[in-house]
């Protein structure tokens, strides 16, 4: 029986050729606005090896699928992606041992992605009640990296306090409590007083959606304090994404349809604070969207 099971296990191994052929099917049908994923998740490196040129860090590190029109999946061993719509796939093709699936998604709702617009933001940190500006550095080199080092410091970022090299705002990819990639804006709180990112002339749509989390190694011991990211639209608070260790990648959503709103565009401010900033390596992703608040 064990010899037989060995033979069966070997027969089920997905070959390089199978992956290449399945990727070719996706490549031929791929359109702007499509997302690509794999099931099971452990095969993700193989997906990116064959289709990584179509998968940018934003797609790989997405928080949800609301910015995409269709979802492609390469599936092996009978797995189904966790974020697949609960309906049959519109395309279902078996290529060797890889199943190519494609689902249509609801029309995209994302109007403005804050991570994409980080260069446009005005960033300042507050000390003793006084706002101090951070400076956009467009010509730096990425820094950091390595096991246990946390998210990479990008080459382009808002640098804030030279005494605290971790006090910057920029786009990076962070592993959060579930070890999944999250493309996000690093905005480490300086303390009880905020680090503030201001985005002007933002299409407000109907709602703002924020996700936020802490770097895996700084959250998993569940021994540090809370972090809060409060959202303001044209000076009015929409509430705050407040998270404790153990919460993981947390979603916050609020309506931008404030009483008295006169324009479709406005200024969005995100202020990040923490009573104790020690190891509060906070990173957030967010966007304004159309559609009712869930």
């Amino acid at each position, binding site marked *: 029986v064990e010899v037989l*099971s060995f033979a069966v296990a*070997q027969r089920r191994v997905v070959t390089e050729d199978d992956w290449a052929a399945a990727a070719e099917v996706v490549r031929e049908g791929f359109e702007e606005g499509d997302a690509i994923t794999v099931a099971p998740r452990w095969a993700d*490196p193989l997906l990116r*090896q064959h289709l*990584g*040129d179509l998968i940018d860090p934003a797609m790989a590190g997405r928080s949800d699928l609301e910015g995409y029109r269709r979802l492609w999946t390469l599936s092996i061993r009978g797995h189904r992606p966790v974020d697949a719509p609960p309906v049959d796939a519109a395309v279902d093709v078996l290529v060797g041992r890889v199943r190519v699936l494609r689902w249509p998604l609801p029309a995209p709702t994302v109007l403005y992605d804050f991570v994409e617009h980080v260069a446009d933001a005005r960033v300042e940190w507050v000390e003793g009640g006084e706002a101090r500006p951070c400076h956009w550095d467009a010509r730096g080199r990425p820094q*950091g*990296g390595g096991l246990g080092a946390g*998210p990479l410091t990008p080459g382009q970022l808002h640098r804030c306090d030279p005494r605290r090299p971790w006090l910057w705002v920029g786009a990076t990819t962070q592993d959060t409590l579930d070890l999944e990639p999250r493309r996000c804006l690093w905005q480490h709180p300086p303390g009880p007083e905020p680090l503030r990112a201001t985005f002007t002339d933002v299409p407000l749509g109907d709602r703002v959606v924020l996700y936020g989390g802490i770097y895996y190694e700084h959250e998993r*011991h569940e021994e540090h304090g809370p972090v809060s990211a409060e959202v303001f639209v044209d000076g009015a608070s929409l509430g705050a994404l407040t998270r404790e260790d153990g919460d993981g990648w947390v979603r916050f959503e609020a309506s931008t349809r404030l009483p008295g709103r006169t324009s479709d565009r406005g200024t969005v401010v995100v202020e990040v604070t923490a009573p104790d900033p020690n190891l509060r390596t906070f990173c957030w992703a967010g966007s304004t969207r159309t559609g009712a608040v869930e």
Partner: protein
Amino acid sequence: MRHRHLGPLDHLVGALLGVAYVIVLVVTAPDIGMSRDEGFYVRAADSYGGWIEHVGRRWTCDVAEGGLGRCAVTCAEGQSCPGGAACPADGQCRSPVAMECGAPGDCSSARRELVDHYWAYNHEHPSLIKGMFALFQLLQTRTEIFVPPSTAYRFFGMVTAGLLLWLIYVFGAQAYSRQVGAFAALAFALMPRVFYHAHLDCFDVPIALMALLVTYAYWRSLTDLRWVVLVGIAYGLALATKHNAWTFPLIYLVHFAFVVLSERRRRRRGEGRRIGLGPWWLLGMALLGPPIFVGLWPWLWYDTLARFREYGAFHLNHEHYNMAYFGVNYFRPPLPASFPWVMLAITVPTTTVALALAGIGTRLHALLPFHLEERWWPDGRAELDAARTDVLLFGCLLAPLVVISLPSTPIFGGTKHWFTAYPFLAIFAGVGFVGAARALRRRLGGRVPFARYAVRVGLAAVLLTPAALETIHSHPFGLSHYGSLAAGGAPGAADLGMNRQFWGFTTGSLTSWLNAHLPEGGSVYVCDTTPTAFRMLQEDGRLDRRIRAQPSLVGADYALVHHEHHFVEVDYQIWEAYGTTQPQLVLTYDGVPIISVYRNPRGRGLPDD
């Protein structure tokens, strides 16, 4: 009473098994890149080797009056003296540095500054095995007999694996039968994870040898007082191998309680004396073990108590490793109590596990305490021996697994941490095999010519085939291997969310690819591979010496990610640093990613055509 007599032929069989295994290990070792821990022990062996060389020189050293250490070491023009100094005009090497001789006339190798200089490194583990690695490396520097050179460091570990097979055969044959011993030795050799670890310059297979050796000596000492000295010596060697040995007496105490209670009960019933009740073995261990332990470890020769406390504290407050188990990355205790049992079940060939369970079932009668055995199993035939051999072997099988299951035990993760159980598991598998062979022979009756031998040999071949297949297939990805039947192989284990590897040794499987893609040399961020392990790939001639390990992935030409659950952050860092999520290569084992290799678009690596 057991202790079947073994003759020279038996030892020849055991030795042949051991030698054959060592040959296989030596031949296959170059396929396995050096692992993280091996890198540390290579450095330790080099350091300890320096001290051993000093001792060697002292044997031939004629220390001059006034003592700058004129040694009777001669050299020729163009050669260098020990320590690297150029050969003087008179052809007489002098001690090259003050370290060699302290105060005038004091060239003792046991001087504290000398001992500390050479032995302080890696003092969280005792000296015996690393000292043996050093001896073979010194042999290599003089003879270059090992190819590739890294085999010199690893060779003694392989020798302990061979000795282990020999001893499994001997123990199994003496306690049960030759068929049990032979099958057990082969079943142990054909455990994929054991096969992997048996290649390494580490302590996990050596301590399995020592566990079996001390247990064997203890077992013999129960009925033969001459073995009291040997059990003490064996225990000293075990203490000098790895800290697991400190727990051995506890196992023997529990077993000895069984022995004493059984014997007293027999005597109360008027049956004759079968075994002594004095714990002489404990005396042997207590009197000989610690002195041998300290004597073999020069670092403990000074500030002995303080340093011993430091050694103990390291292991009592050991850091917790990351270990993936059913999709959860555990990094602090408690690891689920099921961990060692499940990992055993899905990494040891299923046939071997099933035979071991059958063997334990066969001997269940003999595992019960004496009064329970009579009460619960009045009609059976237990074949209890005075030394309660079954209880001893079963206890030695259980104890390492139970220790790892304790909620307070640090998270180690690797199956190697309970390898000390596997020789006993293998012996019970041998018992199961013999039971199966007997049953089959009874069923076949006289229908098969030479049934007694044909059935045994044929059945052994059939029952060992799956283990052989799995072991051969696991190489050189032994730590990524999971049983096909129990886990669905490596892909099945990946589905279950099990750990895929550790120690970064799989970089060794990429050397050809890196040589081809960095033809002019370059830099590689090597993730979990240590610089020493990387350097050994070059010493072995597998990796171009112009390719260097780079600590920063940002400036490297290539970056590697060893796929363990908690290493994913390196993938994400690379996406940002290189502006792409696309690895140029994904090294796989049975279709499961082992290493991703990313090319820095600003680096010197070659794209694929």
